[in-house]
């Protein structure tokens, strides 16, 4: 049984870790316009994370605010999916990750906007508009790279194959949750299949399906990400910033 706290925490952690990874692109993007776009998407994810973590803290009722949840938990306590913690790798891998994430977040937030919990519904109706833009952006790049040059096609196909297995975890059934992720799979498949086809890319076969993020069993990458993110906050216990 996963209560609304656990559910909200998962969504918040997905958004937070995605933001942290996307922000790593700042000053490194292939074009200046893309630097701005990636920062924009990172800011959207961070904004969603702050709303969700704040609400999760209230649901928990233990006095933890967004910063306590972001900075003072260890990796075993994080509930994000593995997909978002994977390293950025090259631009194709980043866009493959963003395509899968946004194709999942868009129907998720859309359903959330209709759910019975008013706070979650308000968050969903704000974030679904942002997700639509993220999906648009990722889809456009996947098409450009898939149907661009020989090199970009090779890299984009490899990227899709690299991250595809991590999609399965996103849709693990959770019937008691405000939105059951299993119900989102059909829309996700339709979206991604269409983008890959237009991008002249081959959709990988489903097989290996790594998971564990929702239970706090992560890849080796997450604790490094957290070590960096949390170092300053933890070095000054109780300080205000």
């Amino acid at each position: 049984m996963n209560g609304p706290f656990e559910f909200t925490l998962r969504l918040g952690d997905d958004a937070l870790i995605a933001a942290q990874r996307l922000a790593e692109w700042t000053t490194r993007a292939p074009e200046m316009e893309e630097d701005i776009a990636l920062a924009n998407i990172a800011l959207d994810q961070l904004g969603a994370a702050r709303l969700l973590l704040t609400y999760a803290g209230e649901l928990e009722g233990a006095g933890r605010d967004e910063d306590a949840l972001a900075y003072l938990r260890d990796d075993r306590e994080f509930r994000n999916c593995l997909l978002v913690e994977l390293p950025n790798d090259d631009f194709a891998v980043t866009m493959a990750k963003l395509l899968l994430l946004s194709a999942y977040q868009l129907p998720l937030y859309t359903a959330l906007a209709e759910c019975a919990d008013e706070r979650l519904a308000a968050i969903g109706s704000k974030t679904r508009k942002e997700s639509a833009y993220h999906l648009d952006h990722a889809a456009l790049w996947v098409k450009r790279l898939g149907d661009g040059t020989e090199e970009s096609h090779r890299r984009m196909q490899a990227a899709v194959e690299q991250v595809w297995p991590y999609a399965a975890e996103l849709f693990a059934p959770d019937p008691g949750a405000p939105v059951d992720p299993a119900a989102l799979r059909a829309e996700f498949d339709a979206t991604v299949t269409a983008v890959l086809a237009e991008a002249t890319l081959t959709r990988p076969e489903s097989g290996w399906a790594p998971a564990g993020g929702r239970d706090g069993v992560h890849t080796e990458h997450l604790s490094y990400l957290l070590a960096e993110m949390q170092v300053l906050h933890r070095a000054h216990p109780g300080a205000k910033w």
Partner: protein
Amino acid sequence: MYGNDFGAPEEASGGGLLGEVEAAEAALREAAARQRRRVPASDDDLAGFFAEIVEADQKIEPRDWMPEAYRKTLIRQIAQHAHSEIIGMQPEGNWISRAPSLKRKAILLAKVQDEAGHGLYLYAAAETLGISRDELVDLLLNGRQKYSSIFNYPTLTWADVGAIGWLVDGAAIVNQVPLCRCSYGPYARAMIRICKEESFHQRQGYEILHTLAHGTPAQKAMAQDALDRWWYPSLAMFGPPDGESTHSTQSMAWKIKRFSNDELRQRFVDMCVQQAEILGLTIPDPDLRWNDERQAYDFTQPDYDELMRVIKGDGPCNRQRMAHRRQAHADGAWVREAAAAYAAKRAVEKKEKVAA
């Protein structure tokens, strides 16, 4: 929106300068409304026409005739400014991943993003003078054009993010506010927009330091240490003393530049003293004192030899900043090529459709 997060006094955080930006914007509108001679009377009248526009505080626009040296000076200056915005993203970007609260992370990420936007905006202004962004980027990457030396100093602690906002953005605003009245229209208009955002950034930086200076002893020490390291490099941002400045006289005559380096440096010092007092931090200058006669503060000059060394490439981070920029550019090449190839394919398809 972030402006409501804190209540620093207007005067103490550069509010007076923002007033000047608004006045420059009003003057720009007035100048545009005044009838000006649209075209020179004849080809022999080109220089006279140009001089008349500058004299009347009207704006030179991209299609107007202008002296070649004026064009070159502007390209050099606007490009250097654009490069500074792009390279300047690095020292602050260095702390995005470690920002100590989610709110600070969001503010910093948005700020660094603004700088990318300023860079793009300025490259576009430079392009109106007949040079492409690609050419300008190449000039930066091969070291033939410079960026502001201040970004060759490292950000070692979180307080440095605050010090950059307060001092570096503060100095940039003092430098740039007069540029809002620059004789070249596209540059003047770009500067108005940029100054407004920079003023916002400066307040955010000031507020970071204010919080640290009123925090734990370790936080206060971090803030003082940042001020100690950034004070003199910030003073050096105004360039060499007037006697040694190579580009100044002509630029003043053309109304590209309106105040001398030393005048602007003095204005900056006078502005910072009161702000440092409110912060409760000590400016690292034992000779800093009010001079009643001059109605200004006496202060110790920055080390101009150090400035020259950093300009020549031997600052703490010159190599690192350039290597980072070159790496990002090189790593992105295949992506840019793919985007171009994709666009070309779509253009062919469109043509075929039209033909059919």
